[in-house]
């Protein structure tokens, strides 16, 4: 079975929404331990409390309200020891909110981690987010954290329990990550899922669709995920190589037909599997005169190189190459080409796709920032995201952003035309 592109992937049919707010049972003791550790340290070392509250309101082109939410995030952080590089640091944050549009309410431990600073080594343990890669917006090697795809253009990372280490040696750096348990990405909501339309054999009638059967990797030593990344900097250039052995956080979907009782009548049983994979990646960035060039590519190897197992995704490659230029007294412009390849199912052609991404940001005064992100696929579809942010006062920022999908039905972005929307938010950081 084929895998999806890494950014704005179209959801698999009948994908199940995960409970956003409940961590998997095996993680709860670990999270509680990390939180207790962080809070204990905080009590001892005079922590700093900060936070952010934000209200978001959205209207879609079909008149529906995709979001009407309010969220509060509280964060506690501090250091142990003093100086430029203290002995240790800690941070913990919780998020609580309610979305009246979806009736979702959440209270979750977001991050909770402690870092030990040794001479040339940093070690962080706990629930955290990490970023790997060099390019903008689309990062093929950035696979440590699952994503919150409930609003796919948001694509926010989800913090997961992780042991993370970084070794610094002059212009070289090695990063190691161990992710002991699997956490799936939050899948897109109903409005973002492609319609379920399986090709049925002659004489078969569908009389229902069963809830999806989800096969998540169990918390087991054999399912521990790990990765390594080595970076070398030379002048205004740096290059990194990445290896990861773990799971895709978005499922490969397949379906089975189960007899419904009467002859010729079947129920559809969607199956969601998370593929074990190994990733090899390479990325770089460098300044050539006034232009910064960035590139990133990753190849994912799955356990189905021949494309014969419908429940396992195929090998895939994603490559990004682009550059950034700051127009004097004008916007900063990023232009990137994004190439996707998915190995074919047995006897079929591979999936190939190419997109161009343009990002422009312009600071139009002390209070106002203008930005535009635009993805254009070769199939004629695309997504344009113009936005403006305005700083009302210190820490008080408002944003208005449009998400405009266009293209023919069945094209990469065209199926989401009805999800085009405008979102307005106001946030206060303290």
């Amino acid at each position, binding site marked *: 079975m084929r895998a999806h592109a890494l950014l704005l992937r179209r959801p698999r049919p009948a994908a199940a929404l995960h409970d956003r707010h409940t961590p998997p049972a095996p993680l709860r003791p670990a999270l509680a331990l990390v939180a207790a550790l962080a809070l204990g340290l905080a009590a001892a070392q005079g922590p700093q409390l*900060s*936070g*952010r509250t934000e209200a978001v309101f959205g209207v879609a082109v079909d008149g529906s309200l995709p979001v009407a939410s309010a969220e509060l995030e509280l964060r506690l952080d501090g250091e142990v020891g003093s100086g*430029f*590089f203290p002995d240790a*640091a800690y941070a913990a944050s919780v998020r609580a909110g309610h979305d009246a549009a979806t009736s979702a309410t959440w209270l979750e431990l977001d991050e909770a981690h402690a870092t030990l600073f040794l001479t040339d080594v*940093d070690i962080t343990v706990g629930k955290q*987010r*990490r*970023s790997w*890669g060099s390019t*903008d917006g689309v990062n093929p090697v950035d696979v440590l954290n699952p994503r919150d795809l409930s609003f796919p253009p948001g694509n926010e990372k989800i913090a997961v329990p992780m042991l993370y280490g*970084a070794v*610094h040696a002059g212009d070289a*750096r090695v990063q190691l990550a161990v992710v002991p348990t699997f956490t799936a990405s939050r899948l897109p909501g109903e409005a973002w899922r492609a319609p379920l339309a399986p090709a049925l054999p002659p004489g078969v009638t569908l009389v229902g669709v069963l809830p999806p059967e989800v096969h998540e990797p169990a918390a087991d030593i054999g399912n521990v995920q790990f990765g390594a990344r080595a970076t070398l900097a030379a*002048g*205004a250039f*740096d290059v990194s190589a990445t290896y990861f052995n773990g799971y895709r956080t978005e499922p490969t979907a397949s379906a089975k037909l189960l007899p419904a009782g009467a002859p010729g009548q079947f129920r559809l049983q969607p199956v969601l599997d998370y593929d074990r994979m190994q990733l090899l990646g390479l990325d770089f*960035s*460098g*300044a050539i*005169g*006034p*232009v*910064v060039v*960035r590139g990133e590519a990753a190849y994912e190897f799955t356990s189905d190189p021949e494309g014969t197992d419908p429940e396992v995704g195929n090998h895939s490659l994603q490559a990004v190459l682009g550059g*950034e*230029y*700051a127009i*004097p*007294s004008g916007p*900063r412009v990023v232009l990137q080409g994004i190439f996707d390849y998915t190995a074919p199912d047995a006897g079929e052609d591979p999936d190939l796709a190419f997109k161009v991404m343009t990002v422009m940001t312009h*600071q139009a*005064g*002390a*209070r106002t920032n203008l930005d535009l992100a635009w993805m254009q696929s070769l199939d004629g579809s695309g997504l344009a995201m113009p936005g403006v942010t305005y*700083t009302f*006062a*210190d*820490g008080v*920022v408002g944003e208005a952003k449009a998400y405009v999908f266009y293209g023919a039905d069945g094209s990469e972005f065209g199926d989401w035309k009805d999800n085009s929307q405008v979102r307005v938010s106001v*946030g206060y*950081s*303290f």
Partner: protein
Amino acid sequence: MKKPDATRRLSALVAALALAAFGLAFAQKYPDADALIAAVDARPEPATSQATLTMTITTAGGQTLSREMQTWSEGTTKRIIKFTAPADIKGSGFLTLTAADGSEEKLVYLPALDRVRRIAGGQQGDSFFGSDFAYEDITGIDQEDYTHKLLEVRDGPVYVVEAVPTPESGSSYERLVLEVPEDTLIPQRVEYYRGGELAKVLTVSGLTEVDGYTVAGERRMESVKGGKVSTFTVITQTNLVLDEALPADLFTERFLRR
């Protein structure tokens, strides 16, 4: 009766001008712009510095926005800035490293993305984090990038010098007019011109002695439109520590992320 008075006044004026010129000739230590700029360049500079900067931006409507940051620099080749307030940009950092050939490496850290990004150069005229200062105003002037001309010498003496950037400098300005007091050799006022018009005015004040160096406590940059001040930004420098050894790995991505 008026004529003798007028004659006396004229004579007095001529005498005063002559005296002023005579006095100037003796008081003026630097005969031309090159000598003055050489002296400015020769002013002792600390090997390292650490400071807290408070930047207050006053918009056209009179409202203010503030930014607080911690800075560390080593000579003129290494500089790191970390924002400490307001909360929405706290933790963001900016590292500039200048190589021996003059090329600059610029890295930005944005905590929300947990990513250090190498950013494009060539935007010297861009606003420094939404303020009236441009990046080239913050990083300072490399005198070799300008040709200088002494315009006049005022009481003080204060030298008024025109500095015209070379095409290679990448400066966004057409010319600068600096007022440099002889006693401090720190420009106390700088006018920046673009397109033949006055674009900005920098005023430096609060000079104090710290560890044997004369340093400015406050810099005020006014943006000028149609001859009137539209917005202005004041940067105040406190907690200044000079010539204290800084760790070798301070100007690195590792510290930028911290």
